[in-house]
Every structure is written in structure tokens, then in C-alpha cells.
């Protein structure tokens, strides 16, 4: 270790302490400053740690929590960037937190969620043993650019680690194409036709044309968005059979899912402690990663059944008579999955949607017109009231109006204290769909009222 790294670690630790004294999160800032002093600090710290990295557009945090749970249940020593600080700076902060001032990390494993734009720099330093790519969807165009650009970033990141084993989503034609020109070993995960809802090809797909030859894909089936059994009629590029597959959905409940999995040829019944199809994908991706990290399929199954995600991902709050549940939304694909989940609720409920347009949300809110809010219309009397909130609440109000929801049932409430007061008065469940920064703020107000973990804990 160099003298430079020593001082970088010292500084980073001092800043962390400082942040804690001030009761601030401080999950990224200390690492950012330490990296300025020693740009390869993460490489030094991660050298002897067996790392699994998770990247992709949607499901990073949930997948990481599922994987982490397996390490926890198996009694392994590990670290994880649990707070969603998933840029190079946040990852570095987490490693420093677990290091001695001489740069020795006392954990055997690391479960690292990595922003898709940060993958370029982070993978080379982390040298992960396993990399999971969950999926690729259009997301925050003003920040990431086109989805093919995000894909190129991830590819560049992986090129720095040719030995890393890739767990790729077989159903995502964009993600799967990473396997084509990289030397890395690949294992595939996905949802087989038997577990997919029988739907025609959706109009709004982020990948209509073959990534290799630009011919329109045909689909054997679609699970959601552009995910499914894709096939290019011209060049033959098609879905690879999954090594880790969901073959059947046995039960879909309000708070959990039961599914039949095929894990390297063996059938297993799994209980997933979350509802909705996008979490089924997160689960099977996590199973792949857990098994490939050498923890075994039984550890994976236990993790799916027991993990608690929290932090705005189907997180439950003890507010109002029937409780409130928060489901983070960031882009059309994820939002549509949440709306589909709402359509399956059989009781009466109220809905809160919070839209912000800050840096971490994406400053362009056009995406709300790609999301199928029309799906809420079909809820009829089950949907009691909709409250819209956040910096761009008026835009949500017109989006819902044009989706055919009676403007009289929509209320703008921008004051989070008043919003939480309202939630506390409800006799029926409240479901909350916030964007990222709205989630952070609203969650603060909610946990002050009813308890819960601060985001950096």
C-alpha cells in the first residue's frame, strides 16, 4: 500500500466520522474526496475481497438485498453498499468503512450494487468474481442518453474484467447481446414461457429491432416490456435457454409469490417474499448470482423466502388502519410493473404518486406519458382516491386526467407532513409510488411518524 492510499483512507474515515456526528448520511462524499487523493483506492481495498456486482436499469437494489440475505443466512462475513450509494464514490466509502487504516478489509465477500454509468470505472477496480446484469430499459434519457449508450458503458466496464462470470438476463435482447463479443463465461437467467403472462407484443418496447442486424424481432412470448422469447428472423439472434429459469408461477399474492424454478436442471419450489413479475426476475437473477458465488441453491431459496428489502421497494409502513406500502418508480418499464401489481389488488385502496425532476430522478419527466396510467382506469371503484405530490405534481395531474381518471378524484397535496397526516387517517391501504428523491424525502417524514431505518443504516 502506498503512503497516498494510507492518507486517503485516513481522510475518508475522518469524513465518515464527521458525517455521523452531524447525523448526515455521508455515504458518497468521503469516498469521492478519498478517490481524488488516490484514484485507485478501490482497487487496493477490493483486492482480496470476493465480490458480486449487480448492475442494469431496474432491480439492482432488490437483487442485491436478496443476494446479501444468502450471505447473511450462511454466516459469511461480507460488506454491502446498502444505502443505494452505487457510484464509484459510494462503493469506495463502503470499502473504507470496512477497512483498517492500513487498507486491510476484514470481510471475505462484498455484495455491490453498481450504477450502470459507473460500471465503466468501478468494474476494473472491483474485479468482481460475478457480475449480474438485471435488464436494460430506457431510463432518464437526459442523464444516461439512449439505452444503447448505457449498454456500451456496461460493456466497457466488463472489458476490464475478462475473467468475471456474467449472469445475464436471457429474456432481454439488449442485456443478452453483451455475451456476443465478450470472452467472459456466461450463465443465463430468465422466465420461461410457462411462467409468462400470455400477452401480445407491447406497442412500447425499448428494443423492437435486432441489436445485431436491425431486423424487427418476433416473439414466442412476452413477460413484460421487451423481455421475453425474442427471435430475429433474419440473423437468428434469439433468447438463450436459461440455466436459472422460472418455469411456473404457482401463486401471486399481495405480498409474496410462489414459483417453480429450474436451477441447473433441478426443479425447486420457491417462495419469494415480494409480489409482481419484476421481482420474479430479481429473484431468479439473485439465485443465479448466489449459486455462482458458490453458496448453493438451498441458501438461495432460503434467502428469497426471508429477505426484507425495505428502502422504498415494496416497503411497508405502519400508517393508517391498513398500513401503507411504498413502491419506488423510476421509468416506464418499472412504473408499468407497479401499475400491473395494483390491477391485481382485490380490495379498495388509495394511491399516492410523487413525481420529482431533480438530478437523481432525471430532469425530464416525459416518461410519465410512456407509462400506462390508463391501467388505473380499470380499477374502477377499488381505487378510492389519488393524491399527487412532488415538484411536478401538476404534470401528474394532467397525465391522470388524460388517462381517463376523473379529475375530481385527483388531489394535489405537496406538503409531505399533510400527506402523511392524511395517510394516518385512512382506513383502507395506501399505496405510494414515488420517484427516487421524492422517496427519500417522503420516507424521512414517514419514518419520523412510525419508525423505520434511516437510509444509511
Amino acid at each position: 500500500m502506498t503512503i497516498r492510499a494510507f492518507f486517503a483512507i485516513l481522510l475518508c474515515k475522518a469524513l465518515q466520522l464527521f458525517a455521523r456526528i452531524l447525523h448526515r448520511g455521508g455515504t458518497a462524499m468521503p469516498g469521492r474526496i478519498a478517490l481524488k487523493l488516490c484514484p485507485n483506492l478501490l482497487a487496493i481495498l477490493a483486492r482480496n475481497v470476493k465480490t458480486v456486482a449487480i448492475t442494469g436499469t431496474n432491480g439492482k437494489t432488490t437483487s442485491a438485498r436478496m443476494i446479501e440475505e444468502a450471505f447473511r443466512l450462511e454466516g459469511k462475513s461480507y460488506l454491502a453498499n446498502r444505502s443505494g450509494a452505487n457510484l464509484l464514490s459510494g462503493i469506495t466509502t463502503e470499502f473504507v468503512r470496512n477497512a483498517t487504516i492500513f487498507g486491510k478489509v476484514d470481510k471475505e465477500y462484498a455484495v455491490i450494487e453498481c450504477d450502470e454509468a459507473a460500471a465503466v470505472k468501478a468494474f476494473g477496480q472491483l474485479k468482481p468474481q460475478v457480475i449480474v446484469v438485471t435488464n436494460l430499459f430506457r431510463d432518464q434519457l437526459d442523464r444516461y442518453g439512449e439505452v444503447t449508450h448505457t449498454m456500451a458503458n456496461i460493456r466497457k466496464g466488463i472489458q476490464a474484467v475478462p475473467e468475471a462470470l456474467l449472469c445475464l438476463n436471457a429474456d432481454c435482447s439488449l442485456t443478452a447481446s453483451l455475451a456476443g463479443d465478450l470472452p467472459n463465461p456466461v450463465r443465463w437467467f430468465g422466465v420461461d414461457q410457462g411462467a409468462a403472462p400470455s400477452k401480445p407484443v407491447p406497442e412500447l418496447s425499448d428494443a423492437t429491432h435486432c441489436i445485431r442486424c436491425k431486423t424487427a424481432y418476433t416473439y414466442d412470448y412476452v413477460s413484460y416490456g421487451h423481455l421475453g422469447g425474442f427471435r430475429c428472423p433474419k440473423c437468428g439472434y434469439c433468447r438463450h435457454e436459461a440455466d436459472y429459469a422460472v418455469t411456473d408461477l404457482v401463486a401471486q399474492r399481495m405480498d409474496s409469490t410462489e414459483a417453480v424454478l429450474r436451477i441447473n436442471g433441478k426443479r425447486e419450489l420457491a417462495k419469494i417474499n415480494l409480489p409482481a413479475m419484476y421481482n420474479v426476475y430479481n429473484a431468479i437473477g439473485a439465485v443465479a448470482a448466489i449459486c455462482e458465488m458458490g453458496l448453493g441453491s438451498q441458501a438461495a431459496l432460503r434467502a428469497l423466502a426471508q429477505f426484507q428489502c425495505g428502502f422504498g421497494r415494496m416497503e411497508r409502513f405502519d400508517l393508517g388502519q391498513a398500513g401503507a406500502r411504498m413502491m419506488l418508480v423510476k421509468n416506464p418499464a418499472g412504473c408499468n410493473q407497479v401499475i400491473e401489481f395494483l390491477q391485481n389488488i382485490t380490495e379498495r385502496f388509495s394511491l399516492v404518486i410523487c413525481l420529482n425532476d431533480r438530478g437523481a430522478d432525471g430532469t425530464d419527466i416525459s416518461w410519465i406519458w410512456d407509462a400506462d396510467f390508463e391501467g388505473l382506469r380499470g380499477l374502477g371503484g377499488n381505487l378510492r382516491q389519488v393524491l399527487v405530490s412532488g415538484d411536478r405534481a401538476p404534470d401528474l395531474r394532467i397525465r391522470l386526467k388524460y388517462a381517463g381518471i376523473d379529475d375530481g378524484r385527483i388531489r394535489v397535496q405537496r406538503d409531505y407532513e399533510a400527506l402523511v397526516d392524511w395517510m394516518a387517517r385512512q382506513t383502507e391501504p395506501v399505496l405510494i409510488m414515488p420517484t427516487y428523491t421524492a422517496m427519500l424525502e417522503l420516507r424521512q417524514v414517514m419514518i419520523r411518524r412510525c419508525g423505520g431505518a434511516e437510509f444509511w443504516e
Partner: protein
Amino acid sequence: MELKICHMYPDVLNLYGDRGNVMCMTQRLNWRGIETTVRKLPIGDSASLAGFDLVFIGGGQDFEQQVLLEDLHRGKDREIRAAIEDGVCFLTICGGYQMLGSYYETYDGQRCDFIGALDLYTVGAKERMIGNYKFRCGPESGGSLVVGFENHSGKTWLGSAVQPLGTVLAGYGNNGEDGTEGARYRNVFGTYSHGPLLPKNPALCDHILLTALTRKYGRAELAPLNDEAENAAHDEMAEKIH
């Protein structure tokens, strides 16, 4: 009364909420009891443009541009030019707007021929022009204040045969240099205001609808709607954007 809308290339030109414009036009016509049909014209569909009153073309990703150009040059380019000269109303946005011009020259000098329906061309710039912006429409386009979001790297320059759609009040517009935004030619409205332009700008939406109805029926009127929600969103952004 009835209006026939054609949504061109919804399969590839649907970058970020573009379809919100079609939803908005349809709803605002339906609320007034005007029958509306929307026909989607994806790549490979060779249906004629004749018989449509309003054509909408959105923006797209670079990835599909080649597929799109091949399809255009199989005869749709001629159809579009003829429809425009015939006075059909067009609303074209971002990529769809650039595409009606004569060409696009990339930042490193590669030239790509477009369909030449409008007297304008676009040159790629190094820095993307991204952000909320606002502009004032010219009197011939209704004169309303429009709030929107732009995200383009192309700088568009207008020739003498077209008029700008409006004057930039904050943001970049066509090129960030000459203060113009968008283009007007016959009944064509072209703009960089990407995605859902119309829902927050009901005055512009109604002006476009009226243009299409007037062409079809000689004279037309649109009954006023309750635009409280739309105006609230519009006014708040107009205030915010500097």
C-alpha cells in the same frame, strides 16, 4: 365533424412520451364530440397518407435511424412531400422534425440525406442541448407561450421558405444561436419540444387541431374546455424556467 389522425412510426419514433401528444389531441377532440380515428403506421406499412387530416411524427433513437431512412426512401418520402404540399396538417417533433429537412450532417462531417420536405437542415453539435425551455409562438401559430423539454445534439438552421414556429425565451431552440424555435410551412408544425408537448400547452394543441379542421371543413370552431389542470401545469413551468 371527424378528424383522421395518422401516427407515423409509433414503433420506432416513440422516444420519450411522444404518444402523449396523440392522446392529448384525441381526448380534446372527443371531449368536444368530434369523432377521431388514429391509424398507426409502423415501419413497413405502405398505406397511403392520402385521406389523413393530421399526421404526427415523434422523435427516436439513433439506433433505429437507418431502418427508418430505408423505409422512408421506399416511397414514404414522396407521400409525405405530397401530403404537405396538399395542406395536410403535420405535427413533427425532434427527430421527426429534423427528418423533414434536407439533410443531417454529423459532428464529424458525415452527411445523411433526409426527405427535403421543408427548407431546413441540421448539423450535429458537440454538446447536447438538454433542459426545460420556453418559447413564444408566432402570431400565425396562435401566439401562445409554450413550455417544453428539449434534448438534441443537432442544430437546425431554417431556409427562407419556412418560418420559425416561435421565438426562444429560455433554452436553446433550433440551434441556441439565432433565437428561433421550430418551423412552420403550410400546415406543418415542427418543434424540438420533445415528448408530451401538447398536454401542458392546450392553446397550441387547439391551434393545431383548428388548423386541421379548418383545412377540412373550410371553417371550424372549437368549444372551450375546462383547462384548469392543464393551465396550472403550464403556468407553474412558465414561471420556473428562466
